[in-house]
């Protein structure tokens, strides 16, 4: 275990940024989001939850996949086509395809909370199983995660429901675990990549005992038990529950306030749906992918229409996917209990309300028997 004073933390950031891109919570116009560190940025390590999760670091909201450009180039006489036209041309067109290069440099994501690290695990299931997404894979290989314990969790947090330990990031699949206690950042490498990173900044770190972090761990663990949503039961969800849940009447009531916006999707650390589009530029196109939301009315729009035509279907899809289909396919929930949707839904709908609504249904059904 090492430590560094928060007074000195900027030198740590500078040291990391010297050789690697550094991605960390930065406050801009009043809101904390992950962004590249710059000397004059306002680092917000004290923000419990950034608005968007840090999944952008591995799966950015927007990325160009490749560019296609149409070039007019000279041609030699033997290749000449279209000689039936009145004009003799000595030109022809050629398509030039330039794929975007995969990430080939290490980068550090600093200050990720355990829930968000767990979120990356869910993304891994999707993007690293066949067919592997090369863009994502390259970023995962080069990304170094420095996880940070959640100093004062809030009432919207319920990560423990999904087996996340917000107190002890060393249990997360990160590279370095850190705690902030009394103006000091405690640092513990937990993977090979983490060890290497530690080495590269060793001169800035000093040795520390485990007790400060241990105290923080028990403190946070204790707070978690007091938070209302951590008592949520997942009984009735998970693998094999499709029939039971899909046809429930509860959805028809629950979805009604839903605006069909993408807020929950875009702040969520596990949502992984994307769309691929073309953007026409000067003499070609850029093919890019961007996050999509299953809540949008044009999600998976095809020539023949959509497979989900109503908001209730779209609403059900999002939660069924997180709580039933994903466990069915990958053996884990696609919710990590970060509580961002709890904080951000304009209509105060969220995954907790969904789970509770089904609990109530069960209770009511039980009472009727």
């Amino acid at each position, binding site marked *: 275990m090492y430590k560094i004073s928060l007074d000195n933390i900027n030198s740590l950031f500078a040291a990391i940024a010297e050789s690697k891109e550094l991605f960390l919570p930065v406050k801009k116009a009043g809101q904390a989001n992950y962004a590249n560190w710059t000397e004059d940025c306002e680092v917000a390590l004290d923000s419990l939850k950034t608005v968007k999760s840090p999944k952008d670091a591995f799966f950015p909201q*927007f990325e160009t996949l490749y560019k296609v450009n149409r070039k007019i180039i000279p041609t030699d006489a033997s290749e000449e086509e279209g000689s039936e036209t009145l004009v003799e041309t000595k030109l022809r067109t050629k398509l030039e395809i330039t794929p975007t290069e995969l990430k080939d440099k290490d980068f550090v994501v600093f200050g990720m909370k355990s829930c968000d690290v767990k979120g990356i695990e869910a993304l891994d299931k999707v993007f690293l199983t066949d067919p592997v997404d090369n863009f994502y894979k390259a970023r995962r290989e080069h990304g170094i995660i420095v996880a940070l314990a959640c100093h004062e969790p809030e009432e919207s947090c319920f990560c423990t429901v999904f087996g996340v330990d917000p107190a002890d990031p060393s249990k997360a699949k990160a590279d370095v675990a850190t705690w902030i206690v009394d103006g000091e950042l405690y640092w513990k490498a937990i993977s090979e990549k983490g060890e290497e990173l530690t080495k590269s900044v060793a001169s800035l770190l000093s040795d520390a005992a485990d007790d400060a972090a241990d105290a923080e761990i028990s403190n946070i663990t204790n707070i978690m038990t007091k938070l209302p949503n951590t008592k949520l039961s997942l009984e009735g969800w998970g693998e094999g529950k499709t029939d039971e849940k899909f046809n429930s009447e509860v959805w028809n009531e629950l979805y009604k306030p839903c605006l069909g916006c993408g807020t929950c999707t875009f702040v969520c650390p596990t949502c992984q749906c994307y769309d691929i589009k073309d953007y026409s530029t000067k003499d070609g196109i850029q093919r890019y992918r961007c996050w999509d939301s299953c809540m949008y009315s044009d999600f998976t729009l095809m020539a023949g229409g959509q497979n989900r035509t109503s908001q209730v279907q779209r609403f059900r899809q999002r939660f069924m996917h997180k709580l039933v289909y994903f466990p069915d396919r990958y053996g884990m929930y696609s919710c990590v209990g970060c509580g961002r949707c709890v904080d951000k839904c*304009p209509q*105060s709908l969220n995954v907790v309300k969904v789970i509770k609504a089904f609990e109530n249904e069960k209770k009511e059904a039980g009472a009727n028997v």
Partner: protein
Amino acid sequence: MQGLIDRLSALLSDGTVARVLGWKKGDMPYNPEPHMFETAESLKDFVYDGFCGANLSKMMIEASKLEGKTAVCLKPCDSYSFNQLIREHRVDRENAYIIGVGCRGKLDIDKARANGIKGIEEVSGTELDGPDSVSFKTIYGDKEMSYSDLLLGRCHVCKGKEHMIYDELWGESKDTADSERFDEVKALEAMSPAERFEFFKKELSKCIRCNACRNVCPACSCRKCAFDNNNFDSQQKANVDSFEEKMFHIIRAFHVAGRCTDCGECSRVCPEGIPLHLFNRKFIKDIDELYGEFQAGKDPEAQSPLTDYTFEDCEPGIVAERSNG
């Protein structure tokens, strides 16, 4: 509140209305959700307090199509939106029974959070006839804030306590305006173009294109938004380049210009806290100054300034004249 619940119950029971559109208790003390109550019994979960900020008028577009009347609880500012929707033939006045509910300003939980209040377990003092301060019981200790410090930004420029349309009224309203409606816009206008550009760039670069502002907006009631259909080749989903956010928000504000009632829902719901009302309010200010004062939703018969004209209207060159002094 019990009085309101009793009245709504009676309306449901005597068949005046088939359902009630109101707010349902949330799982947190501060997050009630809009809800359609179909039975008198279900009204046990009805809530109306300082956190019921959501403007329910847009939900009446769908509710209008249902069999029977819908009782809808509208705050004074929501009633403007409802009127505007009548003007645009989007809601059916005959299918609505409007309970004009009193309002003493609506609360913004983020104001509490910004004040360091977290781990909230209970909140008290938010009811319509409650005290001037709100108490928070949190796992990190008890906190208190004054009601007015917790108000949503829009309530500081409240349009007044009068309902523009209603069938019956419930509860006392309070005009919570304590600053000038156009002060924020004026402050921006006073900046240099470069400063304004930096301001909007900073704010808009946060936009994640979640469309919450659009989807909550009672004026943005298009079946298929110009940004979701292909007619302008503008189908976009991501924050791809900073231009797209500008384009989206300018056009969105333009499309609702002359129709926007300044209900402030866009700013309330923005997950990134972008002060989107600054776009709409700029248009309102310009319209007031250039074409005469106009408040959308005040009168459902009034012609919108953008579908109207006079021979003597100012020329577009006035923009440069005003801006360059």
